[in-house]
């Protein structure tokens, strides 16, 4: 367990920097986490992060990569509905890296 300091407030994270309490999340925390991942958040990044959070609210899990690419494709145009586009935004893998920034738990398993 570790803590991160953002805007004078302290937030609990796990060994890999994922938020422990999902309700702690806010845009400052997201920006901070993105920074530690060497990502500069753009509108494109936020589209993905916001979709992840909406999906999580409904299903209590991050969407499958395919569900994510399809949703992004519908929203932003077919050429962006590809895993290449998502890997471009989140080089360490859209599943894990984008989840972290979105304040969601890390998906685990054989993935």
């Amino acid at each position, binding site marked *: 367990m570790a803590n991160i300091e953002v805007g004078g407030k302290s937030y609990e994270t796990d*060994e*890999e920097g994922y938020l422990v309490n999902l309700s702690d999340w806010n845009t400052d925390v997201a920006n901070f986490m993105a920074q530690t*991942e060497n990502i500069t958040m753009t509108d494109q990044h936020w589209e993905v992060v916001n979709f992840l959070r909406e999906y999580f609210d*409904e*299903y*209590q*899990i991050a*969407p*499958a*990569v*395919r*569900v994510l690419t*399809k949703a992004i494709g519908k929203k932003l145009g077919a050429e962006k509905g590809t*895993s290449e586009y998502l890997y471009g935004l989140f080089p*360490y*893998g859209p*599943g*894990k890296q984008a989840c972290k920034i979105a304040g969601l738990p890390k*998906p*685990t*398993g*054989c*993935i």
Partner: protein
Amino acid sequence: MADITAPAYRTIPIIPALIPGAMEGKGPFVASEKINEAIGFPGQLVEDWHDKAIAKMGELLSKYRSLKVFMDACVHCGACSDKCHYFIGTQDPKNMPVARQDLMRSVYRRYFTLPGKLFPKLVGARDLTREVLDEWFNYYHQCSECRRCSVFCPYGIDTAEVTMAAREILDSIGYGQKYSNEIIGKVHKIGNNLGLPGPALIDTLEGLEEDVKDATGIDVRFPIDVKGAEVLLITPSADFFAEPHIDSLIGYAKVFHASGTSWTLSSLASEAGNFGMFIGNYEQLRKIALRIREAALELGVKRIVVGECGHAWRVAYSFWNTLSGVGGGAGEVDKFAQMLQKQLDHRYKQPTHICEFTWDLIERNALTFDKSKNDKHIITFHDSCNVARGSRMGDLPGGQFEIPRNIIKAVANNFVEMAPNTTREQTFCCGGGGGVLTDDLLELRVKGALPRMEVLQQAVDEHGVNFMATICAICKAQFTKVLPIYGFDRKLVGGVHQLVSNAIQLGPK
């Protein structure tokens, strides 16, 4: 995430130079109190861990005669030493299988043999100190239980069983691994390793029906919880979630569609994987397997088919019969196992691997393929360790090697083999099996992939290979992660049923 780079390929693949301590302290995260307690293990390292660990070891030695033989039989001939992908990749001498086993064997000698009790120094016997315990945790999580070394052991010592015993002892004193134990908690609580709840699963499957309809114009169904279906498909939850796994799930659905088979998934048993085996814990292994029996009884299915998952197939093929009653061998007093055995149709293999299912249809000319749809691929096949060395398929010895290859050749025109000392029963682990497929072990995973990457490179250079097919969810996930680190496209790996999916003709013949 720290930058981890691929080690250089070896010019001559021989025993690497030793780097003592190279992987010291590079083991995985320790499971938290919450994770351990959720599955009935002590939350953290218990105070009397020394006595408890030795007592547990004694219990395992008396329960598993094999373990005692493995402790006694090794003569340190060294035949196994350079056969381990982790030793080759990390150069840490403690990752030689013989040395890794000796971490336990030295303790065994001290407490369970007369010479070790009397003259510990003379026979290399060691007290179980905290340092030794930490060494166990570190190095027994740098073994993927792939059993390649066992193939070369003149005594047939099953090294994986030693690793499993060590992990079982560690769990019994509250010193378990985060990744495996967290996942086992999820499978009990939610039904699968990923923690994919029923509604999310249903949403994903509906999305797949749309996708296949868009791509082919045909209504291929992905049914779930359908009572009275003939086939229950048990597949790794990664097949619902990850790339390229999901393409094989589409392949299975197309095979069922084209053959007119009524089938269903189960939201209760939406996981083939069984991490109970990785941690060597029989109770967990059984409890996880029993979910499948419960689902099969509830749905009234006649056949159980297992999707592309390496260790799941080992558990299914080798252990399901006595664990759950799928197949023969249910105990006479095991009422539900007896019930299930009566329910299942024994004209078929129970369980059946999806590759056996598909190959049987191909042999009976029940499926039509347009092989040219796979012409963009030059394909090779990576044997997954638990399928290769822990199970079988079909009716002939070696069926687990031939059947997946036969399917590939039936659906594609370009197939080549990788170097023969790295395939079939001598296959190298992908580097992520046995409960190490976690980011905290990424350095180990990258280094452990070295021998497979070397021969893949050779196949790419000599034959232009651009697709490595495999039938294991862990292999697919591991390669997707490490291929780019070795300079390959991550899409170079995929499933056998992904190739089936590309070529199968769904319309009327």
